[in-house]
Each structure stands twice: as C-alpha cells, then as structure tokens.
C-alpha cells in the first residue's frame, strides 16, 4: 500500500485528474491493474464511506471521490476485461413502477460503482417486465429496487412475484430501500436485504454476492 498511495489519496480527495494520471503512470510501470483496484481504489472508497458514516463527509464529497475512481477505473476496466477479471458483481437498479423519486437510487448507484460493482441503472417508473428483461440480458447478480411512496411500495412485491413467475428469481439476490421501506417489509415480500441509507448499499451488496 505504499507505492501508489498517490492513487489512494487522489480518490479519497476526489482529485479525478491526479487519479487518472497516477493510474497511467502505474500501468506504464507494469503494475497489475487488479492491484490498483483492490489495494488502492477500493480501500480509498471504503475510507470515503467510513468518513461519511462518521459525519465527516457529505454526499458531494463522496460523489467527487466516486467520480475520481470511475475516471481511473475507465483506464483499467478494458485491461481487466481483456484478462478475464470480472467486477465484484452486476447490479440492476431502478425506482419501481409508479414512482419517480430517484435521488436515493442515484446515490446507491454511485456508491456501488465506487465499491467496484457494475451498475445497470434502469431509471425510474420501472416495470417488473423491464427488471426481468435486464436480469436476463445483463446476467445480473443483484436487483436493487427503490420506492419513496407508500402507494408504490406494493410495486416491489409485484416485481418480486413477477420475477418468480418468470423463473428468474433464483438467479438474483434482491435488495430494497427507500423512505417508507422497513426490514419487516423486505422480509414480508421476500427480498433478500434492506438498506436504510445509500451508504450501507456497498456492504449489503458485498454480503449478497458472497452468500
């Protein structure tokens, strides 16, 4: 963790230009791309998450860091793909049918990307059919659903039922969140996990892909 600590610092401080240039430098020096991700970038994002949880960082600081990481990752990803290295997991994400609220969903997407996941964001007002199509097309590991309204919470249940009927429920883990959502509701509708804030999303997703 010493040679390329400049990369760690650049991601932590949200310095995208430096993150990209240090990555170029490291790759030119023959450093294993996987090492850059696992030893510098992800630990930096973990520290960002820790500072956010400790009320030291606000979301804008977290997003700047995530963008710095994404920029550096853009240089590394083609190399990882070429060498057969897969992302931590693929997450299909969306705000459920009837609901337009997406700030929380977007934050979860940024956090997951920063945590090394590949995120396929389906947007807002996402039907069960669209989730099913994405699961099939993208070979997703996780489906993440968000809702802000009490009247759109039932769309989560409907989506899970539709996933069961379509025979794809067993292919994915399901995590849900949003203001009216509770752990009890997640259990009731058969979701695998529930998060009460965007900051918890990476930890939950890691547990889900490991299980």
């Amino acid at each position, binding site marked *: 963790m010493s040679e390329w600590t400049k990369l760690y610092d650049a991601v932590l401080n949200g310095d995208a230009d430096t993150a990209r240039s240090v990555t170029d430098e490291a790759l030119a020096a023959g450093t294993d791309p996987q090492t850059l991700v696992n030893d510098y970038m992800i630990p930096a994002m973990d520290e960002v998450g820790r500072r956010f949880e400790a*009320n*030291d960082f*606000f*979301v*804008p600081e977290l*997003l*700047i860091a995530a963008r710095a990481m994404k920029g550096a990752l853009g240089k590394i990803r083609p190399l990882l793909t070429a060498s057969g290295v897969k992302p931590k997991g693929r997450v299909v994400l969306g705000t459920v049918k*009837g609901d*337009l609220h*997406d*700030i929380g969903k*977007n*934050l979860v997407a940024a956090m997951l990307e920063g945590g090394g996941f590949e995120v396929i964001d389906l*947007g*807002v*007002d996402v039907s069960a059919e669209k989730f099913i199509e994405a699961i099939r097309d993208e070979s997703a590991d996780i489906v993440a659903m968000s809702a802000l*309204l*009490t*009247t759109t*919470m*039932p*769309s989560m249940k409907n989506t899970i039922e539709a996933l069961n009927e379509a025979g794809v429920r067993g292919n994915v883990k399901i995590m849900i969140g949003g203001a*009216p959502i509770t752990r009890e509701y997640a259990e009731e509708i058969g979701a695998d996990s529930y998060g009460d*804030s965007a900051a918890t999303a990476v930890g939950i997703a890691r547990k889900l892909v490991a299980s």
Partner: protein
Amino acid sequence: MNTKPAVESLDAFLFGRAPHPVTCGRGVEIGGGRMIPEINFTLPGIEVTRRNWDEIRRQYEEMVRGVLRHAVELEVPAVVVEFETLPPMTQTPEWGLEITRILAENCAAFSDRHGLATALRVTPNDTREFRRPPLMRRGEHWEQMVRFFDGAGRAGADLLAIESTGGKEVCDDALVNADLRRVVFALGVLGARDMGFLWEQIVRSCRNTDVVPSGDTACGFANTAMTLAWKGMIPKVFAALVRVISVPRSLVAFETGARGPSKDCAYEGPFLKAIAGVPISMEGRSSACAHSSPLGNIAQAVCDCWSNESVANVRLLSGYAPVVSMEQLAYDCRLANAALDDSPEAARSLRDWLASSDASLDPQAYVLRPDIVLEISEEILTGATTYERTIRAARAGWRILDRAHRKAALNLTPREARWLGRMESAVTELPETEAEMREAMAGEIPANAYLPEEYGLT
C-alpha cells in the same frame, strides 16, 4: 413585478393576517385575521388501480367525514381541506376529479348542516417528469394535467394548486453535488420560465369559475435539499441557500395571477407573503407525521393556514391519523387566534417565540426569521428580472448566514462552517445575467438532461 415588499414593517408581519386576503369556498377567508387549519390526508399502502377503486373512494369518504366531524366537535370556525392527488389520479383525470367531487360534496354538507366554513384545495401532480427528459409544454402528461385543471371547478374545487417541477431534472443532481451554480440555473432560469408557462394555463383554467388559482411550492427543490440535509447528506447551509434561491421562482406564480395561499410545503412562503402580500399556508411540527424538519415552530410564525402536510389513513390509539392531525391543527390555530384576539403585541410575542425557539439551531430556520425574511426580501426586489432576483437572493442569503455565524447567532458545526466558507466564491462568481448563465451551463450540463425548447430556450 413588485419593487417594494407588500408587508411594510416587521410589526405588520403577523400570522393570520395578509395584505391581500383570499375569500373562497363556503365562507372561508384566508389571511383576514384568523389562522385556519388546512388538513391533508392520503391513502395507506394501497395501489391506485381500477380494481381497488371502490375501496379508495370509501377511504377518502371516511377521511373527509372524520376530519370535518372532528372540526365541528372542536368548534373550528373554518377549515381548508386539501386533496393532493396521487399520480395515477392525475394521469387519469377522471379518477382525481371523482375524488374531488366526493370531498367537495362532504365539505358542502358539513357547511350546510353545521355552519362550518369549508374550502377544498385540489392539487394535481406535476406528472410531466414521468418522461425523462420531460416535455414541459406538450405531450400526454401535459394534456392530462390541463384536463384536470379545466375540470377542477366543475368537480367542486375551491382552490387550485400544484407542486411544479420545471428544472428539477437539472436540480436533483445539482443538490447532491452541492453545486450552487446549477441550482441557480435550475431555479432561476428553467424553473422560473416553466412557472410562467404553467401558471398562465392554471389561471386560464380558473377563469370564469369560482376556483381561486392559489399557489405553488419549491418542494421538489428546496424541500428535497432540506430532507437531504436532515439526513446528513448535504450541508444545512447549502440547503438554506437553496430555500432562499427558490423565492424568485415561486414568486412567478403570483406575478402570473395566483392569489394564494401558497402551498403548505412551500417553506419559502414567508418571503412570498412579505413580497406579494398573499396569504400563505405552512407546515411544521404539525407535519412530523409526514416528514421531519428543523422548522417545527418557526414555520408557523407568519402563516395564515396551518397544515399537517399529509398523513396516511392508519389507525392510532385515539382514532384515525387524519382525525388526530385535525385535532393538533385545531389547537395550534386556537392558540394563535387567542393571541390575535388579545392584542397585536401578544400576537407579535407569540410570533417571536415561535421564531426564536428554532432560529439559532439551524441555518434553514434562521433564514425564515421574520426580520431576516424582510431583509432578504428587500434585497431580492432590487433585481429587475427573476434571474437577477435569484442571484441577489443567493448573495443576500450567504451574507446573512455568514454574519449570523460570526456573531454566534447561529450554531454551526465545524463542517457546516467549512462549507459556508466554501460557498462564498460560488455565490460571488454567479454569472450576472441569464444569458451568461445559459452560456456557462451549455458546456456543463449533459445535452440529454433537459430539453431547452421546453423552456422557451432555443
């Protein structure tokens, strides 16, 4: 456009009294010397579908009868009932108008039978954002909204309102990035332009009816910021500036013919009242059933209608939640009206206690202190256009927060103080004209984020 605030002095800036009161419904006068409860309610977790429609009708009937019965029991002299539709009820306007009819009939029945003065405020959704990027001036969502506006009077609405969202497609991302410049663009350029277009239509739909075009809110902007700040996601000082920045945009409704009261969730209401003289509705501790806020008491300081925001029809120990809210609002209004009946000095004392109990604890509360509202309002009015007013609002807001922090009149944590310092350059460097701002944003905002032609920008 006003050049001087309608409220002439701090002494005249009181709850229950507005320079331009609104008379509506069956004997309701808002801003005419009484604080009036505005009760709102919504469905519990039930999908709005044709299959559930009988149950939905039953729930609304139960809710409106429950709250009006309790208003009579508590000897409330006047009440405003607000019906904020759920999105499918705007997308199928016949559904929303059917519920409007049910509520209006019940309001009329209680007025006839019990002498309770009632008015029904109807607030359809701004569903244009269902499409991304949204079509603001055409398309099926816009046409459905216009059908709703046009039908509201026939269905029995007394007041028509909306929570409009023009510019939100740019603002959401700006909020989570604490990007003040883009917030100013979203509100001072896109939002303001959309308000002008939208409110011309609403005022046109109300013409030749008894429906009062009432007001709007920056809920989708400044309340989103408030909620994010409450959860520790963005700085409170930033959220306070977003509130102040939203004022000129919300004023456009009144410049276009809205008469008030502004929407309950428009915490920028005190500025609207100060500048335009319209009555305002506000929500604070009474709306903890819907969301938390740092404005529980100060929100009431100069309000004319006092609201619960919204509450789901769920059973509590004492009764159903909307009925419980009705009681809380009734007692809050009773106290305020007792102060008004006592003397202007008593009313001012209550106003000042409501303000001082919150103001020093949060910058979002501080900017709503009645004397601060008047100070910022004066400065906003030095701008000749909505854009100029928006940047003046941002600069005045920052200067006043900085002054309060330096004088220790406002408690800020070190990280909040750090952000206040960072924002100085952001407000100072705001482009001076709308044209300069548009040019600056052209290279910053992704081309697919919004459609310029939908805001009259080509």
